[in-house]
């Protein structure tokens, strides 16, 4: 029996395909978010996703259909709060994040019976991803990647120096909105891969690993995507053979690659 026999299972094929697309997407956006010190926005929005999913399960609506618009709206809310004077960006993320968690906990506590569903969203299970979810992941991932490609240079210039970009006539507010909305969509998609609790890891870890080894912005993006996708492949494989939870395994593989790249850089110095 071949080592890659496990890939003949259709659920494994679905997991690898959807996981690769979502991981690549997280890595691309993660580079922009980490460099702008906005990486915790992923964490904040994943907490909103928790509240939105609870709402969906409460009203018996497919959770993702509730989560997508609500998380996108929350991401714009964070931008609005940050623009308001006297509220710092991290505090704005904290406000929206706490609200999401509070609503989620409230709905879970007043309604019994859907806690098991919510558990699968909290910790993710890509091995249980459906065909429809795979298609949705692919379509949304390609759409988001195309939008990033279209606005690539504006995103890069604003990430490098927002004040300069604004002085050069770039609509930095619009660019910021595009970035957080794309992040919101990505966070909702990524919850199936690693779960709400670990979404921010998919945004942060491939980038910080790439930053240890890559030279130049394009190389960093490319390295982050490769690291993210390879982590998903290794994570899913280990999860299959060792019967480990897939989300946590993917994150631990990512972390291991980060440690290796960090040590490589230290030794190279």
């Amino acid at each position, binding site marked *: 029996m071949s080592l890659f026999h496990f890939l003949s299972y259709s659920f494994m094929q679905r997991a690898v395909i959807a996981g690769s697309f979502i991981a690549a997407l997280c890595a691309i956006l993660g580079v922009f978010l980490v*460099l702008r010190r906005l990486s915790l926005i992923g964490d904040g929005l994943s907490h909103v996703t928790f509240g939105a999913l609870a709402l969906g399960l409460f009203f018996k609506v497919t959770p993702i259909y509730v989560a997508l618009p609500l998380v996108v709206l929350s991401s714009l809310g964070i931008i609005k709060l940050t623009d308001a004077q006297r509220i710092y960006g991290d505090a704005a993320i904290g406000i929206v994040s706490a609200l999401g968690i509070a609503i989620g906990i409230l709905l879970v506590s007043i309604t019994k019976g859907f806690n098991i569903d919510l558990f699968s969203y909290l910790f993710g299970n890509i091995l249980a991803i459906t065909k429809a979810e795979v298609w949705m992941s692919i379509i949304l991932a390609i759409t988001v990647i195309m939008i990033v490609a279209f606005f690539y240079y504006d995103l890069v210039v604003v990430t490098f*120096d927002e*004040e*300069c970009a604004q*002085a050069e*006539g770039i609509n930095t507010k619009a660019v910021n909105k595009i970035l957080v909305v794309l992040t919101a969509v990505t966070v909702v998609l990524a919850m199936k891969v690693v779960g709400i609790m670990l979404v921010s890891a998919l945004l942060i870890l491939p980038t910080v690993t790439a930053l240890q080894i890559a030279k130049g*912005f394009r190389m960093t993006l490319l390295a982050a995507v490769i690291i993210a996708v390879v982590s998903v492949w290794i994570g899913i494989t280990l999860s299959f053979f060792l019967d480990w939870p897939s989300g946590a395994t993917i994150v631990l593989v990512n972390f291991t690659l980060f440690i290796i790249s960090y040590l490589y850089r230290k030794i190279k110095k």
Partner: protein
Amino acid sequence: MSVISLAVDRVTVKYQANEVLSGISFTVSAGDYIGIVGPNGSGKTTLVKTILGLVSPEQGEINILGTRQSQFKNWQRIGYLPQKLTSFNPHFPATVREVVSFGLLAGKKFPKKISRTDEVAIDKALALLEIRNIKHKLISELSGGQQQRVMVARAIVGDPELLILDEPTTALDPETRERFYAILKELNEKRKVTILLITHDIGTIGKYAAKMLYLDKKIIFYGGFDDFCASPDITEYFGEYAQHLICHRHDGPKNVNKK
């Protein structure tokens, strides 16, 4: 008659109740080299940010390169170097070449691309700032002086008609600073770039700039360095001794007021 590059007309800027600039009016002709000086908190940075549209004035009007600021769209005709090198992320993983290319993107239509002509412009800017040898290095690996040169290359790569620099020499050692001023002079004289430069270094800028604009929430003085040294307004403002010290460093004017 000379072409007016910039006209600032009765501009007042307030941060909440605090008036930072009060009724500022001046014009800059094409090809001028203006040194903007003044004490800390005098509104120098606010003035250039207002010109660039980053700060909205309470009152007044600004005309840039013949167009009212509210209608001005060709921001790529202006090069800008902000006050602190820390305005950008020092750990950003871009190479020198990539950073300089950012200066060409503002005027482009979507989807933006770096063309073959842009590559030539990038090479020229790198050569002018004498940083071609480090073009493949990461910006984070450079010294403060080298980073400053990269940022100037970014500001000039689009061949701007007006170049605005906010305290560009703070990270530079004296030798590099002199070389930097010489490069600006070359840009001004050979390429006819109009320059507005904020600095605390009045003596040095006096050697290079054609005019000085002394700001302290309002304009205290606007004119040539020799006139600055001879101005009774400046004598009254600084006191005779301080004025003499400033002008003495310049070694130029022989007509410092001595009462």
